[in-house]
């Protein structure tokens, strides 16, 4: 049971993030929602590589014993790097949107069909 808690947390984070993106009208909050989903996915990746009583997968100066899987950690790292770029870009777009419309409420933007 205790081993499944991270997975439940992942599920919760993804659902919370999706709910935030779907139901919040504030652009910044939507960006936060995307970030929460991303953290959930990253947590899932990290959890995949976890082994009980394992040490960090550093080849040199290892105290011995089993190591956790390094590949998911590398994937997570890449995902975090991408996340930084995405976050920066989204926030700069929000700045531009705010400049044009003077609001962060998505309902008051000019999109949609006519």
């Amino acid at each position: 049971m205790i081993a499944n808690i991270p997975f439940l947390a992942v599920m919760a984070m993804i659902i919370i993030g999706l709910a935030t993106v779907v139901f919040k009208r504030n652009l910044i909050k939507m960006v936060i929602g995307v970030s929460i989903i991303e953290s959930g996915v990253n947590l899932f990746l990290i959890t995949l590589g976890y082994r009980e009583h394992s040490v960090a997968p550093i080849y040199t100066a290892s105290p011995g014993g089993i190591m956790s899987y390094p590949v998911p950690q590398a994937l997570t790292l890449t995902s975090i790097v991408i996340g930084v770029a995405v976050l920066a870009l989204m926030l700069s777009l929000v700045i531009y949107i705010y400049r044009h419309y003077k609001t962060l409420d998505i309902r008051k933007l000019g999109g949609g069909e006519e």
Partner: protein
Amino acid sequence: MFEQLLKTFDTGNGYWNPLVWGFAFLIIFLIIYILRGRGNPSYKRGTEQTKVFLSGNPEYENKELLHVKASNLYWGWVESTKWVINTLKKMHTGRANDYILWFTFMIAIFMLLLGVI
């Protein structure tokens, strides 16, 4: 190489050769051109015959007004399919959260179709 260019395109159930079509078009064009060259002897430039006929109304001075605008074209079609178009218009709200809602909705549909839930 050259023969391959001229090969007929086999579509499994029929065939299609654009070059033959092009040739046929050329012949038809020639025939039309010859017919047109014979002309209509009763046609006279600059008389009543060449004037625009607007149901008896006088022609606009400003030629620009004669141009049918894009939003007026196919008015009948748009009017008769209004129920579809208005529904579709409502779908396109221009808001990211509605689009994500559609995305989750489609995930649910796929789940139903593939039998996960």
